[in-house]
């Protein structure tokens, strides 16, 4: 079957992606419900671009990322990926043997560099393992040369190759994780909260490194994060998730200055401004995030939305492109005048 993406520049396009986890109970493990962790998510990423995926904990952003890499098998939907040879394949349904050669094109950077590195492997083995497994470089000497080159790329000294992860600080460890991800020259890098476990003075170093590597290697990032300042800083476009659905996608500045979804507005106003002279009037968001196992009817955000009208509790809004490249899932998107940052 032939697949088409949005246009020629699109590296990844996700269409109506769903991932439901069954809830089983009792002796017979009867199915009593579904956790709709990801429930019909659609977005695209152009080559060389950074798309930020933001949302609060439990909104399904990590599950989305894991489905794209097929660390989880999606329940439904398409994950269209333009391979290095220019062909568009659907990762969602690809069998493992066809997926394997594509694995090198998609890599992951994990959140916690203290948990994602094996303490009993030295840098040569950690960064060299993908070279051995995927590229089949058997000679240790040849691998060491390649590893040295990659370590230099991420700003680590090749002399460190024999050392073990415990000898490195958090920021250096995250560089190692990045080096491992880049060992096979991937085209798409999925970074799941790559700086949230780091100290603030080290965060900037890693963010700079990621931007520099992107320019040099023409990388495409899917950047999953909850910290809006970090997302604003590094992303070209941002997608906002709420209880398994996308509520808004727009170019970064457009989203931050002119949000069109009430949830995005509330998120923006909740970010504490690092300026004591602006003690912002945070829009208090009442109540809690609903459970993805038992979401409210209609728009999932309506019980907490201060603009909600009757239709919001009856019909779920679709994600629509209301301006060029600005997608919103809100019944009132056309009429609402919402406040962005600094507004």
């Amino acid at each position, binding site marked *: 079957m032939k697949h088409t993406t949005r246009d020629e520049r699109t590296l990844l396009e996700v269409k109506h992606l769903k991932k439901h986890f069954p809830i089983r109970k009792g002796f017979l493990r009867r199915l009593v419900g579904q956790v709709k962790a990801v429930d019909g998510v659609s977005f695209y990423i152009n080559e060389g671009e950074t798309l930020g995926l933001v949302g609060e904990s439990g909104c399904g952003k990590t599950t989305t990322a894991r489905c794209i890499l097929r660390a989880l098998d999606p329940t439904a939907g398409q994950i269209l990926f333009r391979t290095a040879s220019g062909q568009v394949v659907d990762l969602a349904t690809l069998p493992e043997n066809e997926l394997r050669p594509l694995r090198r094109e998609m890599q992951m950077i994990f959140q916690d560099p203290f948990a994602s590195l094996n303490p009993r492997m030295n840098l040569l083995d950690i960064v060299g393992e993908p070279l051995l497994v995927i590229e089949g470089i058997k000679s240790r000497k040849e691998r060491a040369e390649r590893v040295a080159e990659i370590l230099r790329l991420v700003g680590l000294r090749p002399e460190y190759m024999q050392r073990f992860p415990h000898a490195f600080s958090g920021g250096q460890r995250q560089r190692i994780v990045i080096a491992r991800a880049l060992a096979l020259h991937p085209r798409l890098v999925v970074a799941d909260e790559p700086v949230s476990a780091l100290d603030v003075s080290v965060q900037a170093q890693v963010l700079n490194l990621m931007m520099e590597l992107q320019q040099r290697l023409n990388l495409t990032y899917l950047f999953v994060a909850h910290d809006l300042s970090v997302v604003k800083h590094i992303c070209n476009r941002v997608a906002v998730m709420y209880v398994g659905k996308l509520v808004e996608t727009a170019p970064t500045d457009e989203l931050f200055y002119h949000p069109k979804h009430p949830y995005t507005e509330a998120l923006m106003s909740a970010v*504490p401004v690092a300026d004591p002279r602006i003690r912002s009037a945070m829009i208090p968001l009442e109540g809690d995030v609903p459970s993805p196992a038992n979401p409210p009817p209609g728009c999932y955000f309506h019980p907490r939305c201060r603009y909600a009208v009757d239709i919001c509790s009856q019909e779920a809004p679709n994600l629509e492109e209301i301006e060029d490249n600005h997608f919103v899932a809100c019944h009132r998107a056309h009429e609402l005048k919402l406040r962005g940052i600094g507004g």
Partner: protein
Amino acid sequence: MSSEQRPILSVRDLKTYFFLDEGTVKAVDGVSFDVYPGQVVGIVGESGCGKSVTVRSVLRIVEKPGRIVAGEIFFRPRKGNGRLLEGSQDGYVDLARLDAQGREMRAIRGAEIALIPQEPMAAFSPVHTIGDQIMETILLHQAVNEEEARRLGIERLREVGIPNPEQRMEAYSWELSGGLRQRAMIAMALSCHPTLLIADEPTTAIDVTTQAQVLNLLRSLQQQHNMSIIFITHDLGVIAQIAEYVLVMYLGRLMETGPVVDIFHHPLHPYTRALLKSIPSVYTRSRTFLPTIEGSIPHPFNRPPGCPFHPRCSQFTAGICDQKTPLLQPVNEQQSVSCFLYHRRAEED
């Protein structure tokens, strides 16, 4: 001087060290600051800078092998807590001299100085109801019977904005959402009307919209009760929103102190300046390279000699910064800085 202008807490040259087999970790190494009634003091710093150990020293809950090796922690208890003040001239007790498990310290901890810990999930017991845990605190510190304690507990839960407080008294901590759990924790901390509240990264484990709720709540409770708060965080945005006075810590020492507006708009210490610049903000331009602080925080066993920040400092002067440790000195009416760019006072060894 009226009692309102006298600090409620005055920490003088506090040193808390951890004695490990591998060596001594100087977690807090000569820290002095005051907290005035009704003031919100923010302590900022990155992990390992000693901000938590500082407040744990004040509460006398530093775990072994750590202990306070020097310094004083003067605290002014309420008038009614008279027995504590035996032998004291000016209404202060030195918490550093009290027995950490002794009766005096237990009368202060929880009743006069309360703590909101970072992880409410870990701080509540999962096998007791929220109500039982709040009532336990009340019964311990106040002369009330169980019925009265229950009524007070419900009142506290209502005060922090928990819906259906009567039912929530019977709930277990794991039945509540992150935001409600943190509210319940605040209710418990406030159950005995402390004069000093210590909030140790109270919003780090929760989401940004919940964080906004909790910050708004703390702000309004602080004004209602005229409490003093020591607020610890590594998030400069949170500090800017809640603190009046800021202490900037690095490797167990204070780098700079001052009113929040001066710290953010007129930072003096190279560390404060670099820290403020290196943080991405929603107001800076997207996709620009951030100024960074070179290197990383040294391992606690390899503390650099001299100024602890000198190996990462862009304005480091060889022969001075790497040999002498600068003292925290007032450099203008508001701010104090420990840096040789502004004064020459060094620690004598």
